[in-house]
């Protein structure tokens, strides 16, 4: 005979104002197997838990139902409470009579009725519960950081400082990310390189950090604590162990191509490092453009390299490494403004993006820090900035706010006024969003001290007239059409996900949103975790972020990683799928359904009519299974069952409600 106890929580008045808790408790006392039932103001509080523990002892309860808030809130609390009362924690069920009942129903009578139903179902289920035990998996104490921007670098430094080995896999020849392209940083206007370069060097010299540049993730298998990651080292055509970074090769290489780092405003050679402070300061050959790879002739770099480091025969190499945890920090791209016909479809040379502007004012940029417009290299006197291009635009762009552009536009306008004294900087804006420490003050300085002119309105049209750009807008504060004859226009284009973000997420096995930004496990309470155990997020790959936010998130992700790696093994949730091998037909349907790649086929031998036969059945990897239950629904022979949510348990709930 099962002995069930029922505990109804008032949650202050949260539940009690629409549910008659006393009545629920009284009614529940009559349900089959229930030997004790009570209500209490706050079940989760110390005294509340004492009520439960005492009742377990006094009434010899062997399982309980707590009717209160969502299990997402307090399931761990009550499980612990069970454990300390000497019961298996999985012999506890929660009925959610807050989020699913009192918060959504106004009518007390009906609310009470529904609460009774919910409790009835939970009682029916808990009667069928069996004790479950957690198992444990070992943890491999090495971390992988994907993406070597400021977020990736920070996460790696923190993890490494805690004593764990960490590899940064970066697809470009150098780490640094977007921050390396930025000139000065708001809100302090300190030079980006001055604060970034030391960090890059720290990362390169840290005994626990390996920089794996010009490399990409090929494949990820395994699970938390035990990821098996295959990395593709792209052929650099330069032997990094020999190369000293002297620069002879890229000085002498005859092939010039548009530089990605300079966003088309400058050039680089076919053998190149992306920028002068690159880390590692060792070049790669861009084989698509190299004369030797195209025509078989040239070899200038090889001939001139004093250490004989140039090696045209290198090939891509694959390497598989085991990691306990992964931090994804792949950053962002910029929205392609060529969808805006009204702004010239990206065809006007002097309509540039904010990031291009960063390169134009950077001392080591293509113009050596002099603001010159791309078309004729003249110094522009009137510069128009347009904010929210591609952001907050459902018609042609993204619905979200990109968060950083208000601030960097204020920065750009300030720098224009600082560098060109007789200039006009005009910012067309819809809102000025400055929620950050010292941000509003920074913006106000741009207006008060530097004389940047802000005009509230979205620009409707830009067109080229002679060597001027005519910018047409409305000053919505005045209710009048306005027009500016500008020399250059800078668009604050939206921050968007990297074009390969979705691919990477699928490879590693975590989720992303409709804009391809990576999804955190909980928007408020688990902002750096993903739904996949052992995979964490840092920086702008999770959503638009500035440097302070990216760095904070990176350190937070590092703390999570260290927490994980500090253990030798970790307990796994027992609520996972289990295969009844005797009825599994081995069809494999579940394999394609499982979003966590947790199911494989394995071969078993069994005795049939005295003969030993081999056949295939599904096998669930307990490290990977997240207990989502998708497979159990897909299985045609009902061979899969989710522990803690078995078909029998769920049917008992349904019966309790309907019969």
């Amino acid at each position, binding site marked *: 005979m099962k002995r069930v106890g029922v505990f109804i929580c008032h949650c202050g008045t949260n539940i009690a104002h629409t549910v008659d808790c006393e009545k629920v408790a009284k009614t529940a006392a009559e349900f089959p197997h229930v030997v004790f039932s009570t209500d209490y103001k706050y079940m989760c509080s110390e005294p509340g838990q004492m009520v439960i523990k005492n009742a377990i002892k006094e009434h010899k309860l062997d399982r309980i139902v707590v009717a209160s808030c969502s299990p997402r809130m307090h399931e761990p609390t009550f499980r612990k409470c069970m454990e300390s009362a000497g019961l298996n924690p999985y012999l506890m069920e929660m009925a959610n009579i807050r989020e699913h009942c009192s918060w959504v129903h106004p009518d007390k009578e009906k609310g009470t009725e529904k609460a009774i139903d919910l409790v009835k179902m939970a009682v029916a289920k808990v009667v069928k519960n069996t004790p479950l035990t957690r198992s444990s998996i070992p943890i491999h104490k090495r971390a992988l950081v994907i993406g070597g921007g400021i977020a990736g670098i920070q996460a790696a430094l923190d993890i490494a400082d805690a004593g764990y080995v960490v590899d940064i896999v970066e697809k470009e020849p150098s780490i640094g990310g977007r921050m390396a392209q930025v000139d000065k940083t708001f809100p302090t206007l300190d030079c980006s390189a001055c604060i970034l370069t030391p960090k890059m060097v720290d990362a390169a010299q840290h005994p626990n950090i390996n920089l794996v540049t010009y490399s990409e993730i090929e494949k990820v298998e395994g699970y938390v604590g035990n990821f098996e990651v295959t990395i593709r080292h792209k052929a650099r055509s330069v032997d990094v162990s020999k190369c000293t970074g002297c620069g002879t090769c890229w000085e002498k290489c005859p092939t010039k191509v548009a530089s990605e780092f300079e966003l088309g405003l400058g050039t680089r050679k076919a053998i190149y490092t992306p920028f002068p402070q690159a880390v590692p300061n060792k070049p790669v050959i861009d084989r698509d453009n190299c004369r030797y790879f195209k025509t078989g002739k040239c070899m200038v770099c090889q001939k001139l390299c004093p250490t004989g480091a140039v090696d045209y025969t290198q090939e891509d190499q694959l390497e598989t490494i085991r990691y306990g945890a992964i931090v994804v920090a792949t950053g962002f791209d910029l929205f392609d403004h060529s969808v805006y*016909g009204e702004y*010239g479809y990206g065809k006007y040379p002097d309509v540039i993006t904010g990031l291009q502007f960063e390169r134009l004012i950077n001392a080591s940029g293509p113009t050596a820090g002099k603001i010159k417009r791309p078309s004729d290299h003249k110094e522009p006197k009137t510069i128009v900035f347009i904010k929210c291009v591609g952001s907050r635009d459902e018609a042609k762009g993204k619905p979200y706010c990109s968060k950083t552009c208000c601030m960097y536009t204020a920065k750009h306008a300030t720098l224009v006024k600082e560098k060109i004294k007789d200039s006009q900087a005009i910012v067309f804006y819809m809102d000025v969003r400055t929620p950050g420490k010292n941000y509003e003050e920074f913006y106000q300085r741009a207006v008060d001290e530097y004389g940047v002119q802000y005009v509230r309105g979205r620009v409707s*049209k830009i*067109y*080229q*007239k*002679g060597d001027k750009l005519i910018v047409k807008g409305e000053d919505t504060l005045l209710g009048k059409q306005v027009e500016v004859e500008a020399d250059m226009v800078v668009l604050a284009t939206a921050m968007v996900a990297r074009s390969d973000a979705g691919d990477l997420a699928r490879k590693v096995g975590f989720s992303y949103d409709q804009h391809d930004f990576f999804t955190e496990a909980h928007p408020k309470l688990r902002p750096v975790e993903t739904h996949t155990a052992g995979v964490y997020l840092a920086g702008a790959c999770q959503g638009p972020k500035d440097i302070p936010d990216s760095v904070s998130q990176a350190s937070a992700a590092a703390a999570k990683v260290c927490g994980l790696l500090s253990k030798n093994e970790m307990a796994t949730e027992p609520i996972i799928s289990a295969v009844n091998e005797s009825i599994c037909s081995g069809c494999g349907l579940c394999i394609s359904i499982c979003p966590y790649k947790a199911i494989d086929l394995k071969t078993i031998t069994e005795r049939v009519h005295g003969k030993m036969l081999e056949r295939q059945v599904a096998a669930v990897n307990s490290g990977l299974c997240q207990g989502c239950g998708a497979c159990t629904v897909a299985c045609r022979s009902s061979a899969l069952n989710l522990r803690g949510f078995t078909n029998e348990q769920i049917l008992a709930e349904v019966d309790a409600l309907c019969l």
Partner: protein
Amino acid sequence: MKLAYYPGCSLSTTGIEYNMSTLAVARTLGLDLWEIPEWNCCGASSAHLTNHLLALALPARNLAIAEEAGLDVAVPCAACFARFKATEAAVKDSAETRATIEEVIGRKYEAKYTVKSLLDVFVNTVGLSQIKTLVNRPLEGLKVAPYYGCLLVRPHKITQFDDPEDPVTIDQIMSAIGAEPVYWGYKTECCGAAHPTVVPEVGLKMLKSIYQGARDAGADCIVTACPLCLTNLDMRQKEVGEQNNTQYNLPVFYFTELVGLALGHDPHTLGIDKHFVDALAFLKNKGFLNPVQNRRDSE
């Protein structure tokens, strides 16, 4: 290639040269234009501004007649084109609207065939390369400001033709006949429609910015595909110039006139003598009226 042809009211009065040049050029390009018999006015913007159903029904009657003949419809006038397209879209969109319209016009109309602007027919049915091969008087050195106005390209969802912000079909045709299209910011600005007549204090200002734009871009003349635009731009030019103490001297052409000229037609056959801003003298100055071999009109 046979197409139903809807000239519309303008092309028999103020835009008569658009009709003349279209018919002349069509012959040379091998287009068989079958004029919709007993066509009626599409209602233009007046019906559109006044009554939704009427605005759909008036074009529908013409479309129904073309549909009975089993032909796609070529529409030279941008204003008519916009109304026709709106009707076509409405009928495709909703069976209910279709039923109401059919009831009102007393004919069957299922939008089985496509309404095309004449520009579309030139670029996509005839093809630029075909036009190019037939040119025997390339208009080299003629700097034209291609002017599309609103109705050809907007709303894009309905007209489904060319780009709403930077249309290029007139530009392409002009390049094909050897002329040089200039880039300017007023390609798709509104000419004011009835405003220059009805609310001149507003309409004439709208025209002024267009003249100014064409002049600033270094154009010799303006090319359009709409009789309403042409009438406004041509007829009001002197007046607007006087108001602003200037002379714009920008002849305004239908694209068919310039194509006709390049194909070797006689300017009078094309109706080029019918403009307010003296287009004949302008062309003569440019040397485009010298006799050419293979004059088309003798064919």
